[in-house]
């Protein structure tokens, strides 16, 4: 009886977050629009949408990691690394089939993720610290690989760059947006509809219980790291398509941080066990909107960093309050 009542409350609260995010996004958009009327234009909406796909894909990987009670801070490096590998392939042969390169980048990302996962599980170490280390290791590696040189625009095939261009699109929607939506749908299917997906939630929700239920906790963790890495690798290609070149030093720096922010804003609980694809995607859109608005209003860019930090803190604290209001502790 009372349980049923409680459940209703819980359900409403979780969906409230997504609705709330949508509301915030709309309000922010309108407010900026009122200050700067030119903001109300299809082009602007398009560029906001165009600014999110990279983040969305990385953030979904990060979300998966967080759901399983891990934090992956090397995703930015992994993204750059994969992009570099892809770029090198193109540099050697610009006509190389793009699909194959996408595949390669994704695999490379997955392998780097595998390395993280192995270290974390094999020695049962906190994932943050391990990835904090590998973050730099990977950067260094790609730097050596590239001998401090960047992959210039001229080596990137036009057809790849076209993926990020509105005029080259299905019903006016650029490919990378469609791709990112596709990835999001895929991720949500994997997480909600497949065995491994649900086990990821289980492991994050209560590792001991998972172990006693006969779930291979370490196996699940490693899969999570591979998955997060693969997402970032894939995102690396999208990055190349959008920005048009890759630099071993600047590409993807701070990406993991944005990803964590997006996931947490989207309602992914740092305590593990809960997190929704839709929420994370909305989180990414909110961040993208903020970025665009900031440059649009000519706000001093330095405010951005501070804002992201603030948002993360507010988000986690809110999360906590909601949880405790429900009288349910995220153990």
């Amino acid at each position, binding site marked *: 009886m009372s*349980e049923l009542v409680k*459940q209703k409350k819980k359900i409403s609260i979780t969906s409230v977050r997504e609705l709330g995010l949508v509301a915030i996004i709309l309000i922010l958009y309108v407010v900026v629009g009122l200050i700067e009327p030119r903001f109300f234009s299809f082009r602007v909406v398009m560029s906001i949408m165009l600014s999110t796909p990279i983040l969305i894909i990385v953030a979904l990987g990060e979300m998966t990691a967080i759901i399983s009670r891990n934090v992956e801070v090397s995703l930015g490096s992994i993204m750059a690394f994969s992009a570099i590998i892809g770029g090198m392939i193109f540099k050697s042969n610009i006509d190389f089939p793009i699909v194959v390169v996408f595949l390669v980048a994704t695999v490379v990302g997955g392998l780097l993720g595998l390395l993280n996962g192995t270290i974390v599980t094999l020695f049962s170490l906190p994932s943050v610290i391990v990835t904090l280390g590998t973050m730099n290791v990977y950067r260094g590696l790609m730097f050596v690989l590239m001998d401090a040189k960047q992959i210039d625009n001229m080596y990137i095939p036009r057809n790849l760059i076209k993926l990020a261009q509105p005029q080259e699109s299905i019903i006016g929607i650029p490919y990378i947006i469609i791709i990112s939506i596709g990835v999001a749908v895929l991720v949500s299917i994997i997480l909600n509809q497949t065995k491994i997906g649900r086990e990821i939630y289980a492991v994050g929700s209560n590792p001991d219980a998972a172990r*006693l239920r006969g779930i291979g906790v370490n196996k699940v963790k490693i899969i999570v790291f591979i998955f997060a890495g693969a997402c970032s690798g894939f995102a690396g290609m999208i990055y190349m398509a959008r920005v048009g070149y890759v630099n071993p030093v600047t590409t993807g720096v701070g990406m993991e941080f944005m990803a964590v922010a997006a996931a947490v804003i989207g309602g992914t609980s740092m305590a593990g066990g809960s997190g929704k694809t839709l929420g994370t995607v909305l989180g990414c859109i909110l961040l993208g909107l903020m970025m665009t608005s900031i440059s649009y209003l000519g706000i001093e860019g330095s405010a951005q960093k501070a804002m992201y930090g603030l948002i993360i803190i507010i988000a986690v604290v809110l999360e906590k309050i909601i949880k405790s209001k429900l009288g349910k502790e995220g153990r």
Partner: protein
Amino acid sequence: MSGKSVDSKRKQDSLKTDSWSLKAKGLCKTFGKIDALKSVDFDVKQGEVHAIIGENGAGKSTLLRCLYGDIHPSSGKILVNDKEIKMSKPIEAKGHGIAMINQEPLVFNDLEILENIFMGHLKQKRSKIVDNKRMRDEAVKLLNDLGLDIELKGKMGNLALAEQQMIEIAAALSSDAKIIFMDEPTASLTPNEVDNLFKLINQLKSTGKSIVYISHRLDEIKEISDRVTILRDGNLVGQFKIADISVDEMIAYMIGGTMDKFITKKKVKLDKKPYFEVKDLSSRGVFSDISFDVRKGEVFGIAGLMGAGRTEIAQAIFGIIKKSKGKVLLNGKKLDIKSPSDAIKNKIALVPEDRQGLGVFLKKEIAFNTTFAAPWEITKKLNFINKKKERDLTIEYTNKLKTKLADIYQNVNDLSGGNQQKVSFVKWLLTKPEVLILDEPTRGIDVGAKQEVYRIINELAQEGKCVIMISSELVEILTLCDRVMVMYEGKKTAILEKDDINEVNVLTAAHGFATNKEGA
């Protein structure tokens, strides 16, 4: 429709399975210095309920965890159908058709109830997509068998403890287990729910499943089980057909001879007026309107089943959990205790139940532990530590309790359970308390150590301290206490004076039925 067919199919399968067995030969398990299991033999036949009884720390749970592959036995072997098996993870036990229901339900709060039932063996369609419909149908069937109606869509975290327990049972059943371990499954169930559980257990027997059943409630054992295995301090002390043994005999075997053999109560003359008083103390959702008083030199017992709110009362008095109402008085003056440090200032001490988790720092030196709760005893100005004083005090007090130790600078986890408990005592004695709350003071320590603890309790009483003892072990309650408060589901059901303290009164009150001497 499909659900039914699937379910009946499952039944036939389990019926078809020709008789099988699980055996354990000479299992030993040591944790650090403590022998939890000493060469125990055990076996389960198909379609029987086999109970394991024994006092706390007798090794019941350890045995189960070995059989479930959760911990590795130090030696001995486990056989299924007389073939030895090696298990490194629970997942392998599952492969052998073994499922486990834990003492405290281990659940996934963030997940749906349906998933909680099937997690670990989720059903998939050919497309590798999780088959929610099929699982829901099976789950509905299961919950009906269990006589529950719970919305499967709801989050597990929103269920009451008892419901979570039932869900865990459902989970075990859904995994097509041949044998189910139940570790105190009724600890948090209402009599009503217990009946349902028993119906279910009998039904399972009829379908050829086996149950290994652990409980402190001997009457239940008598009612439900076919055979009983009795453990004491890690030793196998007997295995009987349930018909061949009486409850009293069980107790005798559990405690090793009749109680008065080894517990004696030193008479202490109590002064008339109460020294320590608790007035309608409540903590929202945990316990309510608890009042009692303790006189100097008195040993005041608090009895009740697991989850009756005994520990929580101690925690509330000690300032660890919030009091929603009521007050605590020492020698007539009201105490304002918001945190343990306030309690310590007011000469109250709490020796917690979970010794290793709450009592002592296992990985710190004995001296460190001994003096930690009483900094003022060993600090000079600028709170520098006076190492000499620390050493002297530690030696003095550890000797006082006859603690066996090599060196006061060795880590506590090098000590045996009993001596660890003594360190936990010493730590609190050093704070010179007037009121000592002892929560399950003899949990998981061997008989010798228990006697030591009883001796200490007697001495404390003689020194005129107020001793409040929370215990699940009737023996202690019955012999050591001057008065006993019995609790049931957060309520006081009786306060028994010396002469009324007997097994019947305590147990009836503990199960929520009024005694003739209600609230005396």
